[in-house]
Structures are given as C-alpha cells and as structure tokens.
C-alpha cells in the first residue's frame, strides 16, 4: 500500500468514525444517565436525515442550516418522547424498558418506510467540489461533516465535563439516590440528557444526508454500528465510545478496501464477540460509567 493511499483511507475512515462518534455519544449518554438502551436512536438519525432532505428540496434552505434545525427538532421530539413515554417505564424491570424503546424503533421504522417507501434519495444542494491536501482528496461535503462533528463532539464533551449540569449528569450516572439527596432534579436531568442525545442523533442524520443516500433504514443501520462502538468502548463510557467509534471507522475503511464491505462488517462483529468474551467492560473501560 502506498503512503498516499494510506492517508486517503485514513481520512475516509475518520469521516465515518466522526459521524459514528456523534451517534454513539448519544447512545452512551442515554445509557449512562437514564439507564436505558435507546433502540430508537437510529430512527432519530433517520428523522434528521429526512427532515433535512425535505427542508432542502422543498423550501430551498441550505443543508448547512438543516443541521441546527435537525438538532432542535430532534431535541424537541426527544424531550417529548422521554417525558411522555420512556419516563413512564422508569423503575420497571429491564425487559419492559428495553421493549419500550424497541417498540418506538419499530414504530419509527414503519412510519418512515410507509411515508418515504424504500427509495434511495439524495440532493445536490450545499457545499460541493473537492479539496486537495497533498495527495489526499477530500470532498467538501465530507470535510464539512468532519468539522461539524468535531465542533459538536467537543462541545458536548465540554458540557458534560466542565459545566454544572454536566456534573449533575455524571453524578446521576453513578448513583440516583445520592444525586437526589444532593438536590439534583433527577427527572429534569434525565430529560435534558435524552433531549441532548436525540438532538445529536438528528444532527448526525442531517450530516448523513449530506454525504450519503437517504432511505428509511439509514439510521437503523448506522446505529447498529454505534451499538458495537458503545459495547467496545465500555457501556456508558462517553470517552470510550468516541475513541472506539473513530477506531472502528478507520479499521472499516482499511478492511473495506482490502476485502470488501461485508467482510469488514463480519470482522467487526467477530472483534465484538471476542471483546465481550475477553474484556467484558470494553476495550478501554474498567467500570460502567467510569
């Protein structure tokens, strides 16, 4: 493999990994704080993708503006669903809680499939052209995705690590009873975490619509990789999820090139089972939420 090719693959992997990281960040946040595996996370990605698609093609709005719009839409929908549905299952056995988000996922998948049929859609509005850096060629759209992911990802991590509300979320992830005894408004904090995570998912959907094709399963497929990443990174660990996402993005870029897409995914899953067997708390993690 030549060095320029290596750099090119690395760049491609980084774009995919960054996108995956934003989605996985949300899954880890919800799992850590609300103690729920959000199986419907992928449907919120799809929501962001179709919302952006509609806004761009029907209202002639720039897809770049679609990103914050999708975030706001996602956060609002996420807050509504957490308040009206997910919070109702709080304190119930794990099976019930899992099935609530899974049912939401089925409902979302069904709605998108019947509203938009199975077609693949895309649009050409927004940034176009390529950008060359030495021998590496990167599309302006991919570059946009990379930059937005960087900003959004760093921003979210700063909120979680450096602000008082972030401290409340991290405390809540460690012990609910202690958090309440410390005066932390547990339901409000959960609502915030869920809304933020779903907002991120929808924003990721907007980015997906920029560089890929949009179809009813687009988020569903992406979130499966995000789950892989969350398990590899140590359930609920935000830092672990981000690192694992970028690693998986890059590894996939190389294996896809050397073999093909399917083998790349097969290898990923094998790696995942090996990790579960040998390092059950993730490749990096020691404790849940550490």
């Amino acid at each position: 493999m030549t060095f320029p090719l290596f750099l090119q693959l690395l760049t491609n992997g980084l774009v995919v990994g960054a996108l995956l990281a934003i989605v996985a960040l949300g899954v880890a946040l919800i799992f850590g704080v609300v103690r729920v595996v959000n199986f419907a996370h992928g449907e919120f990605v799809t929501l962001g993708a179709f919302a952006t698609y509609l806004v761009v093609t029907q209202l002639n709005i720039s897809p770049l503006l679609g990103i914050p719009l999708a975030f706001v839409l996602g956060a609002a929908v996420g807050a509504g669903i957490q308040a009206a549905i997910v919070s109702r299952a709080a304190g119930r056995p794990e099976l019930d809680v899992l099935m609530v988000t899974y049912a939401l996922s089925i409902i979302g998948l069904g709605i998108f499939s019947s509203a938009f049929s199975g077609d693949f859609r895309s649009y050409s509005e927004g940034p176009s052209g390529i950008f060359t850096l030495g021998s590496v060629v990167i599309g302006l759209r991919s570059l946009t995705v990379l930059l937005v992911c960087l900003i959004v990802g760093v921003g979210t991590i700063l909120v979680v690590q450096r602000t008082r509300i972030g401290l409340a979320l991290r405390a809540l992830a460690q012990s609910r009873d202690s958090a309440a005894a410390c005066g932390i408004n547990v339901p409000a904090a959960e609502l915030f975490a869920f809304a933020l995570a779903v907002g991120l998912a929808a924003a990721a959907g907007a980015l997906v619509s920029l560089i890929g094709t949009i179809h009813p399963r687009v988020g569903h497929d992406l979130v499966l990789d995000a789950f892989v990443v969350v398990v590899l990174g140590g359930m609920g660990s935000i830092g672990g999820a981000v690192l694992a996402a970028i690693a998986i993005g890059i590894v996939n870029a190389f294996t896809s090139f050397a073999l093909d897409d399917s083998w790349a995914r097969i290898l990923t899953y094998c790696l995942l089972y090996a990790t579960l067997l040998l390092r059950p708390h993730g490749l990096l993690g020691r404790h849940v939420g550490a």
Partner: protein
Amino acid sequence: MSGILTVVDAHKRFGGIHAVRGVSLALNSGELLGLFGPNGAGKTTLFNMIAGLYPPTSGRIELASRDVTREPAFRRARAGIGRTFQVCRPFRGLTVAENVLAAIPPGSGVGDDRARAREILDAVGLLPKAEDAAGSLTLGMLKRLEVARALALEPKLLLLDEPLAGLTASETSDLLGFIQGLKARASIILVDHNVRQSLGVCDRAIVMDAGAVIASGSPDTIRRDPGVRRAYLGESAA
C-alpha cells in the same frame, strides 16, 4: 425554640413487612437527637421517608412547618435536608471535590463553588484527597465524604445514618467530636446502633424496636429505661 422537623404518625409497609409503625417525633433547631435501635428496627426506613426517597404509607412529615410529605427527594434536599447513607453511595467515578461540588446549590459562580467545596473538604479532613477518585477512598474517608456532601447543601437538618459504623476507635472519636461541632450549623439526627458510644453527645434520644418507638427523652432517662436495657442486652448477645 422553634420546630425544624415534625413527623406525625409515620407508617411504612413493604409488601407484608410493616417496617415503621406509627412513629412521631419533633426536632428543635440546634438540637442533636440520637436515634437508636437494633438492626431492622426501622431507623433507615424512617430516614428515607424524611429525606423523601420514598413516601410514607401513611402519616405526615413537616419541615419548618411546611408539609413535605409528597415532595420528591431532590426538592427536600434543596429545602435543607442533608443526609448520609448507611451503606455509602459516593459518586465513585467522580473526584472527591466533584462529589461535594455536585451538592452545592448552583448559582454563585463556578469559581466560588469550587472554593466552597474545598473549604468543606478541609473541615472534614479530606482536602488532601480532593482530586482522587471517590472510589479509591477507605471506608472511614467515605463516611466523612458523605457528611461533607450533606454539609454542602447548607442544610437546616442533617440526617446521619450510622456514620460511625465500621470506623476505628480513633476515627470514631474524631468524627463524633466533629458532629458535635456541627450543632451550631444544623439540627441533627444521629443514628447509631451502639447506644453507649454516642448517647453522651446527644441532647435527647429516641429508641426504636420493631418499627416503633420504645423510649424517648433525655440521655439519663434512656440510660435508666428498663425496656432499653432489655433490648440492648439482646443486641449485645448477638
């Protein structure tokens, strides 16, 4: 003297278990009340009802003449009830300083809050550990961290659930002295299953057994109570 806490005929049932059977008590401000009783007497359950972890099955709880019976735990914490857990529940993955910071009411600006957290840690003797992960502390330190976290709320009422259990003799006398010093800042209910150990620092005490109050009054009254002697002979034999 004004009443800080009033509990009226509180009951708690867990399925078939009647854990607290009609406990009433009143606490004046600046008072240190001892709450004694053997394991399973219902002391922790009473604390959990006062702190709002779960509501009483029946009965009423008032904080400074305000009925808080149906309020969630976090609102009671903000209203001035600070508590520790018998089995320590620190935020293990957070640093010791962050544990305390999490309980400081937000608003005064992050810099101030951090300084305040360090002040409180200094008071309980944990300042050297401020940047360590809470999960790495010894039991004695964890007990003090729980007290520090409760103090961060600027509480009117402190509920201390067996803070002395499992400590060495010197740790016990240090912490007991510290708790006595807190009377100036808050009213305190101190749970201990060892009457001899802490009755001396209490202004007043209550003894529970099998969910009910079996004796209450001044430390001297408690010491002379035949029922208490009997319960504690049973306890010491175990």
